[in-house]
């Protein structure tokens, strides 16, 4: 059975259209990340699902019930707010009990659920504290606990990690992943951090420009970006896009770029639209710094970024086209060096004039 279903959801604030024709189906127990730049409408979509905003058009279904006419408290969803929104005057225990009391859950059942959640989240010693007497990380766990005890059909998390420092964020990420295994519900997490989305989600929903750009498992989003936006938004550093001309005939597209380099891709040629103008998409790992023997192109180093496990080289091709390449970790390159690059056509992507992406078969 499908968990959440969005059908043609549209929303504007005043005359500004924020979301247009958003449709999506979540599988049971699926963990989905809404990924997109700030202001792209991720929170708005989450709030429409929660019932905190009303869509102008479209329907929201949860486990075969239409929920968009229902008030938030009756939808079977629980939300963890970006700033936690814990009730400051209530203890942790009262915070967790509040929703259950409103739902007239029996007292001993409330006790049991709170005890269970507190054990799982390791917040038992905090139960009688107030939010003001806890650290950010502890508040975060309590906020999750408050959602957990409701035993919802769907968890909604709005940027749950964004208020935590780097170390805590990593730890909480792991905990969220573990939590996901325990709950018998679907989870939607809003984030603008692609690493978060990649590590946690079963599927990523990339949102930009009022609508869903692509839905898919993390590696598919990374390996087969549907369009230029997804290609550049997912992956760090961003994919290099190089204007290219279709050259030669053959089963696979062969493209020629500005400095004269010819790249033989593994993208089936018959999939491409009838046009000569394309863009070649290259992730850093598809462009390697090599000895002059294996080189396909020459470039001049503009910046060397040593990341420890790998070294990124920002360079310019002969025609001035910027390109990001990868060198081995103990690279000795420095700014201004002339280098030889090998562009791996098998790992290259092709984008047409409208921005749609084409990829090698398989993989």
């Amino acid at each position, binding site marked *: 059975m499908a968990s959440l279903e969005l059908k043609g959801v549209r929303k504007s604030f005043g005359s500004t259209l924020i979301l247009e024709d958003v449709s999506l189906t979540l599988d049971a127990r699926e963990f989905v990340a809404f990924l997109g730049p700030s202001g792209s409408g991720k929170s708005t979509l989450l709030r429409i699902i929660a019932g905190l905003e009303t869509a102008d058009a479209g329907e929201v279904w949860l486990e075969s019930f239409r929920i968009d006419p229902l008030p938030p408290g009756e939808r079977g969803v629980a939300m963890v*707010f970006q700033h936690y*929104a814990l009730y400051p005057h209530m203890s942790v225990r009262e915070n967790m009990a*509040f*929703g259950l009391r409103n739902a007239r859950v029996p007292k001993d059942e409330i006790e049991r659920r709170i005890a269970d959640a507190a054990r799982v989240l390791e917040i038992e010693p905090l139960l009688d504290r107030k939010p003001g007497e806890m650290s950010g990380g502890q508040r975060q766990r309590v906020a999750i606990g408050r959602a957990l005890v409701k035993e919802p059909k769907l968890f909604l998390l709005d940027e749950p990690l964004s208020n935590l420092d780097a170390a805590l964020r990593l730890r909480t990420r792991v905990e969220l992943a573990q939590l996901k295994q325990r709950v018998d519900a679907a989870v939607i997490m809003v984030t603008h951090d692609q690493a978060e989305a990649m590590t946690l989600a079963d599927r990523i929903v990339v949102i930009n420009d009022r609508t869903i750009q692509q839905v898919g498992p993390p590696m598919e989003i990374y390996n087969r970006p549907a369009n230029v936006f997804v290609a550049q938004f997912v992956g760090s550093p961003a994919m290099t896009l190089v204007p290219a001309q279709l050259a030669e005939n053959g089963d696979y597209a062969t493209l020629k770029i500005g400095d004269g380099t010819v790249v033989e891709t593994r993208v089936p040629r018959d999939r491409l639209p009838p046009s000569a103008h394309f863009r070649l998409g290259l992730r850093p790992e598809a462009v390697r710094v090599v000895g002059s023997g294996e080189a396909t192109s020459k470039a001049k180093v503009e910046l060397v970024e040593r990341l420890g496990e790998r070294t990124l080289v920002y360079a310019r091709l002969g025609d001035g086209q910027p390109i990001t390449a990868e060198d081995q970790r103990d690279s000795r390159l420095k700014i201004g060096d002339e280098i030889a690059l090998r562009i791996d056509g098998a790992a290259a992507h092709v984008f047409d004039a409208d921005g749609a992406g084409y990829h090698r078969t398989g993989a």
Partner: protein
Amino acid sequence: MAADFRRGRLTPLGWAALVIGAALMLAPLTWAVLLSLKDNAALVGHSEAALHGPYTLDNYVAIFGNSLTTRWLLNSTIVALGQTAGVLILASLAGYGFARLDFPFRRTLFVIVLIGLAVPSQAVILPQHELFAWLHLHNSYPGLILPGLIAPFGVFFMTTYMRGIPRELDEAAMLDGASRWTTFWKVILPLTVPAQSTLAVFTFLGAWNDYWWPLISATRSDMYTLTVGLAAAQMNYAQTSGLGYLMAQAVFASIPIFIVYIIFQKQIVRAMAGTAV
């Protein structure tokens, strides 16, 4: 200096200024207390007699010699508590409405409230008198209490305070299945306690000290409040004799206020410093 003061540190100059200021404030109060403890006859012509004994409680005993004094004390208490409770309830509800609900003419109504801040009570006292006469509410507790419930400041104050409470809390409560009333009563209202106590103190003090309206509305002596009653009983407008008795009345009337100040010291300081808003 203000910053130093907040950190609990003071320059010697600062200390001196505070001590002198406090002495200036305390001097007339001390003088009033001393006078109230003197026999009236001893003060005729030379009030400096208050600086030395013999002291006596006769003046205070005399206050209760007037059979109506306790009644006035009771009236003042009922009126002040009634107004305080009423203002808190109305200002909280109205404040929540202005801060959180969407209804027609909300902005216009709020502007009217703000205009209400600028209308002095003297400007409306005549029509108010007529109205209460027409309603037959003079010489009654409702008559004394009701005008005090017109509290534009309270509404403005609670609206501002509630607007400062993050909306995420209301939304969390909605998701927790709370009704509007539950959200107001269990989530928002408890968070306004600091504002409530500040408003309560000021309303109570204002009601207790009010003189003009009870003077107009209460014409029967058993409906006087303490301020009106003590003034009426005094009858000694020149204040040449009976100085001790006069001061005893003043001291007596301010005892409840003194108690309120002691209990709500923290809230009053906070309100004065403007940090409660």
